[in-house]
């Protein structure tokens, strides 16, 4: 944290010192309250088995046949030394478990180490794990989304399965990678609008043919929380998590989170029919759809408190549709700190009730970027070791296969900063006080790099296309760097433009222009003046210029800066749409761009609705629909006047 940030935090602390705490919360009152309560014990959700240690010898695998673990070519990766001099990147990152006992022994060793640290007074924060309904209840749309990157948006070609009255001119979700669809909270097929209700339990279907008319609703049970969904190829796929509490035979409670993908047939959107459901362990993280398959990502935390025995496999091995994941599909960790799995399944849309393939990476957490061919799953270990481990998992036709792993220094800001092109992976990282650019080959070995860029600044946004990449770092001004990647072994900084403020989101706007959405910042480097649109001329990538800018004064945040799916950008239609928060509440803005006149604000209207879902704008033909949870408002794109609305 820089000095100004710390001062600001101290200032807020000081200004709230005067707050009077209600009498009922004073320690004396609280003590009386606690004394008056009946004794009641609820145990941690960790699976607590009483006779723990005795069973260690009985750690046989209670699973049938051992699948051959023919995955991965086990590329060796150099290891960096940890603080204690011990190598922390153990193994290749591609070796799978030989048995469930491998996993169990790892967990046991980690637990022993943690206990040792804890009793030695180390800074281990006590694990608190009750009442996770709190987690489930809160379905913010931020999860996973912020970590994604480059967006491509184009009008969709008409799908055969879409009703014949549907328009072929409608917007699609702004995605990171062309050809790889992403789930969202609002979708359209050219006629119907599909919107996630505020309660996260239902998707409402609204017909737009003659005004707005609610026609159906797909609702799940209480324990299900839909995070987002797909409408693609005549099917609707709901993705999210379930939560339930289970009483074990010993009488303890443990809570279980599962991730679901439930598929419906949309031949008649007014009567969607369920086709199948796939469940896997863990909380929903993200998903993708490509080549007729859905790829489902969940994070399954192992709450091992030292009392789980080796034979309690269902307490520490991920499940896919009721079955334990075979050991040969579990990739072992590269750190000492693994306590969770990244569970990945592919689902063939023709067989939506089974997982075609599943893998789990045993890890301490990571993010993902999905290119046209591969899933790149990256683990930020910068906190411990200053580096990030990247695994490449190919996914063609739903077959998941870990192909390579590698490592770069620093951390990856978001999936904008990692990009595959012609078999090379280009990565932009922030490393300590500086920033770096790396080029990795197919084996994920670093073949080219630039290190030590922009000291004391960090990456805010990036965009790579073909042989050129652009990225923005920030401290007081906003240097926009241009990188030439045409020689993968010698990436080169070819341009650097300094302007005040920073861009949080970059989007190519036609061949010669790059749009930046971010904040305008005073020369003091701290006070923001509002949300800023910048247009950069990139015809000469060695001499990039900011040719136009527009500042939305008194507007302090736009959703698109956190989640690219919130952007409605269509270069052909020349519209830039997004919602933003400011002194006048939440508003939806639409801009057009003209080289001579710059940005023109076509629409600036209040968004109605106070629910939890973030705002989306989608268009069908010449009508723009602004959706926030249960409220849809329609605007004519001729004059951006409101023509209709509906409360679902």
């Amino acid at each position, binding site marked *: 944290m820089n000095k100004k940030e710390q001062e*600001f935090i101290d200032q*807020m602390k000081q200004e709230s010192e005067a707050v009077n705490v209600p009498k009922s919360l004073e320690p004396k009152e609280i003590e009386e309250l606690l004394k008056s309560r009946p004794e009641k014990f609820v145990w941690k959700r960790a699976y607590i088995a009483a006779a723990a240690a005795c069973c260690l010898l009985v750690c046989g695998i209670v699973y049938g046949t051992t699948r051959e673990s023919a995955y991965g070519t086990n590329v060796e990766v150099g290891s960096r030394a940890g603080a204690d001099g011990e190598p922390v990147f153990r193994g290749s990152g591609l070796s799978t478990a030989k048995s469930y006992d491998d996993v169990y022994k790892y967990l046991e060793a980690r637990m022993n180490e943690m206990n040792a640290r804890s009793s030695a007074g180390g800074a281990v924060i006590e694990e608190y794990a009750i009442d996770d309904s709190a987690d489930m*209840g*809160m379905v913010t749309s931020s999860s996973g989304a912020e970590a994604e990157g480059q967006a491509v948006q184009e009008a969709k070609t008409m799908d055969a399965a879409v009703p014949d009255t549907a328009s072929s001119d409608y917007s699609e979700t702004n995605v990171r990678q062309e050809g790889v669809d992403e789930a969202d909270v609002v979708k359209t097929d050219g006629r119907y609008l599909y919107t996630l209700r505020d309660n996260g339990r239902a998707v409402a279907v609204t017909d737009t043919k003659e005004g707005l008319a609610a026609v159906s609703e797909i609702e799940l049970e209480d324990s299900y929380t839909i995070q987002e969904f797909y409408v693609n190829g005549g099917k609707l796929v709901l993705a999210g998590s379930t939560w339930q509490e289970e009483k074990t035979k010993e009488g303890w409670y443990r809570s279980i989170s599962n991730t679901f993908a439930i598929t419906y047939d949309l031949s008649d959107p007014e009567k969607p029919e369920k086709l199948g459901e796939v469940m896997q362990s863990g909380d929903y993280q993200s998903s993708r759809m490509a080549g007729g398959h859905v790829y489902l990502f969940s994070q399954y935390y192992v709450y091992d408190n030292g009392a789980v025995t080796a034979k309690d496999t269902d307490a520490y091995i991920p499940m896919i549709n009721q079955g334990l994941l075979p050991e040969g599909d579990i990739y072992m960790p590269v750190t000492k700190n693994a306590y969770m799995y990244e569970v990945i399944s592919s689902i063939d849309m023709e067989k939506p009730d089974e997982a075609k393939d599943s893998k789990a990476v045993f890890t301490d957490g990571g993010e993902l970027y999905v290119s046209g061919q591969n899933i790149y799953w990256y683990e930020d270990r910068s906190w411990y070791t200053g580096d990030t481990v990247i695994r490449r998992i190919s996914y063609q036709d739903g077959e998941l296969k870990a192909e390579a792993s590698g490592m770069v220094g620093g951390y990856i800001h978001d999936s904008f900063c990692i990009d595959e092109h012609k078999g090379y992976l280009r990565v932009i990282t922030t490393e300590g006080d500086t920033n770096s650019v790396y080029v990795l080959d197919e084996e994920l070995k670093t073949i080219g790099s630039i290190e030590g860029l922009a000291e004391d600044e960090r990456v805010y946004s990036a965009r790579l296309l073909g042989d050129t990449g652009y990225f923005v770092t920030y401290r007081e001004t906003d240097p926009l760097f241009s990188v030439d990647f045409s020689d993968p072994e010698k990436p080169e900084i070819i341009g650097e433009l300094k302007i005040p403020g920073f861009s949080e989101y970059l989007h190519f706007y036609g061949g010669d222009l790059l749009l930046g959405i971010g904040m305008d910042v005073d020369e003091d480097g*701290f006070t923001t003046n509002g949300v800023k649109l910048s247009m950069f001329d990139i015809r000469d990538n060695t001499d990039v210029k900011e040719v136009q800018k527009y500042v939305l004064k008194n507007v302090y945040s736009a959703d698109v800066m956190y989640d690219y799916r919130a952007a409605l950008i269509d270069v052909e239609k020349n519209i830039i749409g997004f919602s933003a928060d400011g002194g*006048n509440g939440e508003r939806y803005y639409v801009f057009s761009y003209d080289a001579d006149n710059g940005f023109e604000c076509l629409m600036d209207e209040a968004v109605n609705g106070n629910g939890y879902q973030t705002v989306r704008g989608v268009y069908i033909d010449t009508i723009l629909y602004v959706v926030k949870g249960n409220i849809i408002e329609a605007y004519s794109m001729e004059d951006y006047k409101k023509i209709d609305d509906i409360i679902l």
Partner: protein
Amino acid sequence: MKCDAAKFAGMYEGVYKDLYRFALCMMRNPQDAEDAVSEAVIQGYEHRASLRREDAFKSWMFTILSRVCKKRLAAAAKKNEMNEAEFFERAEGAEDRLEMNMDVRRAFAVLSEEEQMIVGLSVFGGYQSGEIGQILKLKSGTVRSKRSRALAKMSVILKPCSAGGQAEYY
């Protein structure tokens, strides 16, 4: 750790003001904040067996309180959804939140819930990004960048004393 009501209240005494201030910024009105702290205290007390070290009490209580706030906010959102029919009439009143008497709370109101948690834990918990990451299950780098953005947003409402480019900072 052996812990009865008196012992619990003793540990609580050291942190309750910050807990309440944090809740006040999260919940936006004093009654909800009071309820959230009470609930967190009761939950903490009932699960005190899982607290193994006294010096972890503060972060443990903040973890519980942040979950309670999340849960209550989500419940409030579900309730609000029922009243959405009135929303079009109330659209003009979108500035309700800004009437709050405290500048700090006004500045909090512009943040997303996650940002409120991060800034709240920085201000009232006095935590660094790594500890906040552990409480909220986020990477410390993520916490750092989210906190910077959040503070930048807040600076629009609540002018930092040092704003205005005073020379001594450079």
